[in-house]
């Protein structure tokens, strides 16, 4: 394990901004996509119940 | 009262009609008839002010429509060859918007009633007009007449591609308008099933 402390970990050798933006944006996009699909599914389910 | 005085019109070098003087009194209908290409559409567009006459004048309550401008257009409803509806909008939206632009009432319920009155079933009220059939699109255009409170109606072949049910609805609507003291000018190839005393014919020759 090369990280001496959490702050070192977050700093990423001075590249923290870039690294964490990348990972953060990726995580955010994926979570957003999952939520979007989930909401869409819920909406579709409601409509189905309405029709039936 | 609506009058044309010695009206003459031409399209590109060709004289279509000349010296046409007719008077449309409240409660009467003027049927413009004639062969294909005799100038019915051109005549109607002239009455709207969309086309300028070669000679003569068009008078609304005795005043020239060229002087009246917007005061005159506020008196008429025109339904042309083209339907004047947006393909991408639904019948309801189309009718609402055109009623609103004409200054007529345009709530959802009123609009739906008008569409049903012309024979357009509820099932297609919320589809984009693009997918409707030829005749159904015409219904949407004509439904404006059920909302219109204007005294003068100018209709260009309103019956073309309508089925029999819609034709009779429209005839009834015209009847109601006339008995309210309205005026109608109509270009058509069909017979109109209205009492003959309220109809006046203008035949254009080719």
């Amino acid at each position, binding site marked *: 394990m*090369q990280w001496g402390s959490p702050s070192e970990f977050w700093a*990423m050798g001075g590249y923290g901004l*870039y690294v964490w933006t*990348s990972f953060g*944006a990726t995580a955010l996009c994926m979570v957003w996509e999952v939520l979007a*699909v989930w909401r869409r599914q819920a909406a*579709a389910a409601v409509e189905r119940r309405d029709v039936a | 009262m609506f009058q044309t005085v010695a009206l003459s019109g031409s399209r590109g070098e060709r004289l279509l009609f000349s010296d046409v003087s007719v008077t449309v009194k409240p409660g009467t209908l003027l049927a413009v008839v004639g062969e294909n290409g005799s100038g019915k559409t051109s005549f109607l567009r002239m009455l709207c002010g969309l086309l300028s006459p070669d000679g003569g004048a068009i008078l609304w309550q005795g005043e020239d429509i060229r002087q009246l401008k917007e005061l005159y257009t506020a008196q008429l409803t025109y339904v042309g060859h083209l339907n004047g509806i947006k393909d991408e909008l639904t019948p309801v939206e189309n009718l609402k918007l055109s009623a609103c632009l004409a200054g007529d009432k345009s709530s959802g319920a009123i609009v739906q009633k008008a569409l049903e009155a012309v024979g357009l079933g509820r099932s297609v009220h919320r589809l984009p007009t693009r*997918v409707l059939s030829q005749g159904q699109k015409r219904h949407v255009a004509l439904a404006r007449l059920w909302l219109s409170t204007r005294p003068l109606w100018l209709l260009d072949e309103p019956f073309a591609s309508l089925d029999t049910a819609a034709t009779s609805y429209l005839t009834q609507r015209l009847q109601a308008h006339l008995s309210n003291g309205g005026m109608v000018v109509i270009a058509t190839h069909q017979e109109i099933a209205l009492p003959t005393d309220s109809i006046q014919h203008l035949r254009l020759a080719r």
Partner: protein
Amino acid sequence: MSFMGINWFKYSSPQAFHPLAGKMIPWFSAAALALIGVGLYIGFFVAPTDFQQGDAYRIIFVHVPAAWMSMFLYVIMAAWAGIGLGLNARPSFMMAQAIAPTGALFTFLALLTGSMWGKPTWGAWWVWDARLTSELILLFQYIGIISLRASIDDLRRADRASAVFALVGVVNVPIIYFSVRWWNTLHQGASVSMTASPKMAATMVTAMLVMTLGFWMYSFAVTLARVRCVIAERERQLSWGKNASIQQVAEAR
């Protein structure tokens, strides 16, 4: 016809596919979570710092999987589209429709993480090099397919028109992949990659591969969930039609 004991035709109809997809989604989701977790652990805590690029290189663990997925998903989408056109099969069009947004998302992520990486290593957020450009074009293709579908509301036409365009656009995928080889560019090629010693490179490669597998699982889960939405939405439109029995006749065709 049965293949490995499964009646495939049974699942080729949307109604049968809907519950099947529902059953598979949890498994894929769990696999995705586990793999991405392990990948992140190896990537951040096992793999050492690169002595040339410092820790910025760790972006590789999202960048490369995202870039790969963007291309894979396009090919898969085009394949479904082709099958749909060839066999006139509605479920395959639905699959193609469900894949497009995820593909676009990964393309966007590849671009984003790439430029995050580019700033520290190349000194610029963006350069006009062949691979970057072709990846950008891939994004436009995804957007093109999605907007083409969005602008057509007749489902049948929407399905088939976007399928034709997806197929035509496949030519771009080999261009992206080989762009590094064909043109001399700033972006690194497959062989150059790591500057560290072989043993350390191995942990990096492992992390990258595990992350990629995780992204695969994620894509499966999300597209299956989305295809369920698509089926449900289309069924709803169907039930707006006249009566159910005749729809089933049409469906069975």
